[in-house]
């Protein structure tokens, strides 16, 4: 169906892919893996003519994506062929915030179907079918801007699936999903594949690749063969467990292994002495309270996080993880209840630091050094002291001083993540909240970031928040599970498997 012959592709600044020979058969389930920056996304975009090869040839159902290469630079094929190619090959991209074209979920799905002239009654049928397939039928009339990242990702999947192309490319399109929604999405993908839709699944999550009939790896711009690593039965069992839905448990089933609370909120408010640790007492939080679009995010959370350890918080999409992160870091004040750190309210940049999802989006200086120094200058340190601090921070996160004068935008994604990590710990907070710190990283960078977190956790308390159960279990001693805004479990990690 899709044929790539000796394809070479380069961006103006660097070559990306070379010597790619690939044949994708009708109804095939192909997995593509590879490190960040290896050229996976470029390959995806080449398949439906968003990019055109600088050398070699790509054909989809016999139509070439580019005009025959003459002496001049290649251009895309004629609009009619291009439309036919795009109708055959759909792509779901990674960033859930930049693919919604409609305002509501329904409108977003309708957009693509109108483009290819599907009759109105058939549009209705497809909207119902694909929303149900992904388990988001209730979101049909919702405003996309108000959905969580994971929900948006499911909407993007539905919008492309509903166009029923012969082949769908999923470019890291499941990265924001929690284990349960991820498994549902993978089931839906398998179902499409059984109906003879070719699937190309691009991911660094090796577990997602188990349904693939063939997996290739892209390394340094070339295809290398790749076999699914032999995970022990235990690891696979663990992965399955991680996908066990927790949201069906009602709070009445909750059994809490945490120490009984010795403090009431009234006491916290009065007590002037320092209690080491984070104390979250009767915290509820609602966005836009008192309006028609009020969203309750957290309901009556009581949690105590002891000083000096990594504390893990697990939760699915829309469970209130990021809200809790902002409250602990002092960026928001809870609607009711109180959050204190060592007996005083958290203050961002002072006693609490927070690393948001995709923190590299927030760089703004010309060099890594300047970006790191920006927050420190505000504290009134001398330039020498700032320099020393930056060096020691870079040591702590395992980056060498060679990158100081580089632009943060020219680093690899793993390095960027570590630099932003450094930016936060440079201001020496006692408590650090990490919201999905490994999101979007390949296996190698992910391990690197986890090692660094374990390393710094000797000096400060880390609250590690993620939907990746394995990461949380690897790194933390005590964990809590958030489910639909309610604390469903707190305890040691070995108690977690019993609870589940």
């Amino acid at each position: 169906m899709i044929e790539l012959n000796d394809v070479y592709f380069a961006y103006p600044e660097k070559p990306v892919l070379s010597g790619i020979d690939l044949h994708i058969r009708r109804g095939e389930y192909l997995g593509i893996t590879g490190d960040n920056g290896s050229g996976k996304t470029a390959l995806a975009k080449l398949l439906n003519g968003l990019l055109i090869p600088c050398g070699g040839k790509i054909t989809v159902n016999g139509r070439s994506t580019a005009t025959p290469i003459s002496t001049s630079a290649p251009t895309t094929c004629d609009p009619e062929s291009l439309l036919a190619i795009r109708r055959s090959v759909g792509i779901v991209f990674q960033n859930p915030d930049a693919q919604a074209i409609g305002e509501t979920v329904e409108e977003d799905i309708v957009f693509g179907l109108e483009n290819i002239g599907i009759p109105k009654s058939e549009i209705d049928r497809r909207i119902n079918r694909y929303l149900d397939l992904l388990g988001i039928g209730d979101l049909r009339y919702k405003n996309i801007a108000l959905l969580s990242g994971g929900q948006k990702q499911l909407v993007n999947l539905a919008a492309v699936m509903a166009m029923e192309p012969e082949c769908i490319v999923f470019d890291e399109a499941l990265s924001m999903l929690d284990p349960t929604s991820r498994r549902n999405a993978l089931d839906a993908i398998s179902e499409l594949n059984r109906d003879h839709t070719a699937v190309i699944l691009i991911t660094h999550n090796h577990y997602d690749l188990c349904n693939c009939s063939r997996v290739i790896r892209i390394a340094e711009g070339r295809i290398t063969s790749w076999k699914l690593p032999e995970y022990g039965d235990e690891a696979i069992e663990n992965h399955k467990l991680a996908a066990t839905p927790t949201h069906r448990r009602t709070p009445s089933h909750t059994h809490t292994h945490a120490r009984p609370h010795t403090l009431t909120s009234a006491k916290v408010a009065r007590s002037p002495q320092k209690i080491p640790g984070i104390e979250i007492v009767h915290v509820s939080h609602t966005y836009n309270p008192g309006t028609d679009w009020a969203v309750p995010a957290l309901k009556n959370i009581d949690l105590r996080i002891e000083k000096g350890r990594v504390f893990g918080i697990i939760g699915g999409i829309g469970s209130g993880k990021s809200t809790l992160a902002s409250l602990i870091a002092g960026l928001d004040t809870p609607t009711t209840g109180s959050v204190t750190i060592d007996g005083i309210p958290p203050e961002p940049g002072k006693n609490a630091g927070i690393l948001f999802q995709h923190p590299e989006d927030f760089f703004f200086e010309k060099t890594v050094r300047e970006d790191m120094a920006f927050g420190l200058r505000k504290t009134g340190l001398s330039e020498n002291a700032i320099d020393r601090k930056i060096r020691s921070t870079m040591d702590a996160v395992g980056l060498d001083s060679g990158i100081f004068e580089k632009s943060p935008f020219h680093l690899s994604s793993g390095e960027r993540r570590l630099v932003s990590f450094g930016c936060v710990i440079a201001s020496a907070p006692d408590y650090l909240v990490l919201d999905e710190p490994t999101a979007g990283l390949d296996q190698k960078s992910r391990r690197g970031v986890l090692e660094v977190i374990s390393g710094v956790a000797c000096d400060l308390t880390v609250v590690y928040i993620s939907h990746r159960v394995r990461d949380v279990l690897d790194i933390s001693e005590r964990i809590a599970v958030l489910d639909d805004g309610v604390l469903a479990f707190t305890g040691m990690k070995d108690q977690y498997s019993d609870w589940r």
Partner: protein
Amino acid sequence: MMFATYRKGDSYLHRLDSRTKLLLTVGMGIIVYLAGPMKLGLLGAVVLLLAAVGGIPIASLLRGLRPIAIFLVLIFLTHLLVVSKGNVVAAAIPPARFILLILFTMILLHTTSQSELKTALAFFLRPLGRFGADCAFMIGLAVTFIPGLLLDRDAILRAQAARGCKPTGIAGFTALIVPLLRRSFRKADELSDALESRCYHRDAKRYYYGRALAGRDYALVIGFVAVLVLWVSI
């Protein structure tokens, strides 16, 4: 925010075609502009009537006035002190017109979703041909993207605050604007990829939300024009 104004409902106003509603709202604007004190009072009653028909709480309508409350007071004071020289009734007319204009628009926004508004806009731009269709599509996309832009701005301010940077002064402005522009440009790139991947082309027809104007739409518009003529002549 505008996107939060619409409430789903099944009242007469909700069911009315968005093109008719848009046209009537513009017509109401003309009536408001031509009305004197007595007629303005009458129009106030019309607002209450429409709110009742559409099942819209008055408090929720009035919320639309909040952002421009100071502006309204300023208009009133300027007229009171400079133009009408102490005549309170005369000074109250211009702000009253503004208030009614906003209330009629709020009724439209409360009972019409953005998709319906976009459809109406595309309909009225149709005489401009392809250019009109492009305009309607671009306005639609821009409206969809504004909430995202505001959320991005908040996210960046919070992230910089978490690093201890209070975004003040030139440096603070850079700390906001550089990431915001980078994000926006990247999103625009990604959006265009998503548009193309979903087979967007300029000749695509938008028909799912379209429907034929019903007899009651014509009747309403003709009746409205009749009232307008009468209104002006008496």
